[in-house]
């Protein structure tokens, strides 16, 4: 029971890789968007806010379809990427990472924005009177104080990525070993006669992965809280 079949191992590792890549690449972007939404006032801010939240309210299939149109080999962005860098995301694990990053983005940016809004700006002012530039204030005061929010955002984004199904299957299809993540593999098993036991095994794996991620985030969150003086 403890031994995973090659298909399961492939699906699990692929899922982790896709979710990790999607999370890592959307982190800085989400941070920038959170900062724009929380700290700046500009024309079109509400529009940006709406666009960022769209993946949360749209059917994932719509997101997958739009990605397919934009990033497909003949799509405007996809063609450009291929012509310029010889690089394509369509029907590859990178595409799956892109799809899950887009789907997880609203959750990530939202958590970061909320935590950024709770950072005491008076502390930032104090740091500047002590001679710290804006950049140093951001790295030494703002970022550490919003670290619990960044962690929460990352966890939410990661969790959303692990569970991503609709956008992924629409955008990069269900190719074993390349784009077949855990949920896609599970779906595939449910579509063949007698696939139920295999589907159950994947369910258990999914639960174990989810629990491990939750526990890890809890431990890290406590450490961070202690570090920034939330618990004394």
């Amino acid at each position, binding site marked *: 029971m403890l031994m995973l079949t090659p298909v399961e191992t492939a699906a699990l590792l692929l899922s982790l890789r896709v979710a990790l890549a999607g999370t890592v690449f959307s982190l800085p972007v989400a941070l920038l968007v959170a900062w724009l939404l929380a700290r700046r006032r500009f024309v079109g801010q509400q529009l940006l806010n709406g666009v960022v939240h769209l993946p949360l309210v749209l059917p994932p299939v719509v997101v997958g379809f739009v990605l397919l149109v934009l990033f497909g080999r003949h799509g405007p962005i996809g063609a450009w990427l291929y012509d310029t860098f010889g690089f394509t995301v369509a029907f590859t694990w990178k595409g799956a990472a892109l799809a899950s990053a887009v789907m997880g983005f609203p959750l990530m940016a939202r958590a970061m924005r909320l935590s950024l809004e709770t950072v*005491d700006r*008076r*502390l930032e*002012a*104090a*740091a*500047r*009177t*002590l*001679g*710290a*530039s*804006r950049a140093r204030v951001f790295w*030494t*005061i703002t970022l*550490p*104080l919003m670290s619990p929010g960044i962690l929460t955002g990352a966890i939410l984004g990661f969790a959303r990525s692990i569970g991503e199904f609709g956008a992924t299957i629409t955008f990069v299809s269900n190719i074993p070993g390349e784009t077949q993540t855990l949920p896609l593999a599970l779906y595939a098993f449910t579509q063949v006669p007698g696939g139920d036991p295999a589907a159950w095994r994947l369910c258990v794996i999914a639960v174990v992965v989810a629990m491990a991620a939750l526990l890890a985030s809890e431990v890290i969150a406590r450490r961070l809280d202690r*570090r*920034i*003086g*939330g618990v*004394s």
Partner: protein
Amino acid sequence: MIEVDIGTTLGGFALDARFTAPASGITALFGRSGAGKTSIVNALAGLLTPARGRIVVRNEILFDAKRRINLPPEKRRLGYIFQEGRLFPHYSVKGNLLYGAKRADTAAFDRIVALLGLGNLLRRRPGDLSGGEKQRVAIGRAILAEPQLLLMDEPLAALDAARKEEILPFIAALRDAIDIPVVYVSHAMEEVVRLADRLVLVDGGKVAASGTVEALTSRLDLRPLTGRFEAGAVIRTVLRGHDKDYGLSELAFPGGRLRVPYVNQPLGTPLRIRIHARDVVLATAPPSGLSIRNAFAGKVVEISPDKGPLVDLRLDIGTAAEPVMLWVRITQRALADLRLQVGSPVHALVKTVALERPSPGGGRGLAEAHEAY
């Protein structure tokens, strides 16, 4: 010099402040809550950008609206001690202290840590500190950034009376041990008299008056701002003699000598004292047969136009060359019975003297001076 001439509106509140102060000693910005004191200090620090005007500190233009100069806070080298401390919760006390330090000068660090009594706190987190400890760390942190001017915005306001007494000597010690000019915001006259050399009275977003503490506290017209209840004059004196037999010390000022309980300071020490208007008694003839030892001849200079049962008189008990102002509070009835007018010769009898502080450079010994009421 510190030159401030700024104007701006903040949500319906008009700030229009103009004053100069020497870049030495402690200058107090005094006024009621909401008078605009904090806005002035924030403008000095660069945390608030005024609509017009200029700010110059020690010949460096920090802000000039016309010339579009507006140095960011980090370029102004002004230390700011906030009412609420504003320590960084994710740094240790030591980390906070070193946050603004430009060079690794362990001697300076050790000296400030010793001066502020922070030695046992260095590894603690701000969350574990008492209010007084936090404020001491905040003071140390600002000084270690080597500012050219320290701004203190009611650093004691958030503390209870006992904690205030814990911090006040540290601020006084700083004034004497470290040569950094201070702009001190306060709405408590006792703090101002105890610490400050100069006073800037702020009222309704404007500077009502500025000058030495002695000059401003002796003006009857400023009484609504300097505080009526605690009204009193501040006099500069020099310690001239000790009478060990009776446990007394003599303080000389241009109009005579004051006898006060023994002051444990060397002769020649400049001392500033505060005499409350309610602690002075008036007589029209030289007194005799009284227990009061401190009697000074002078004349009435001004009578407040108050309508209530009490009236404040300003007396000059100094010499022609060096007037010394004293206030006395008497009843309207006494004023009428004694037929006092401006110019009337009187004798002022002083019941109690509060030794507020040694003058700048006068050394420590504040606690001893205070015991000797």
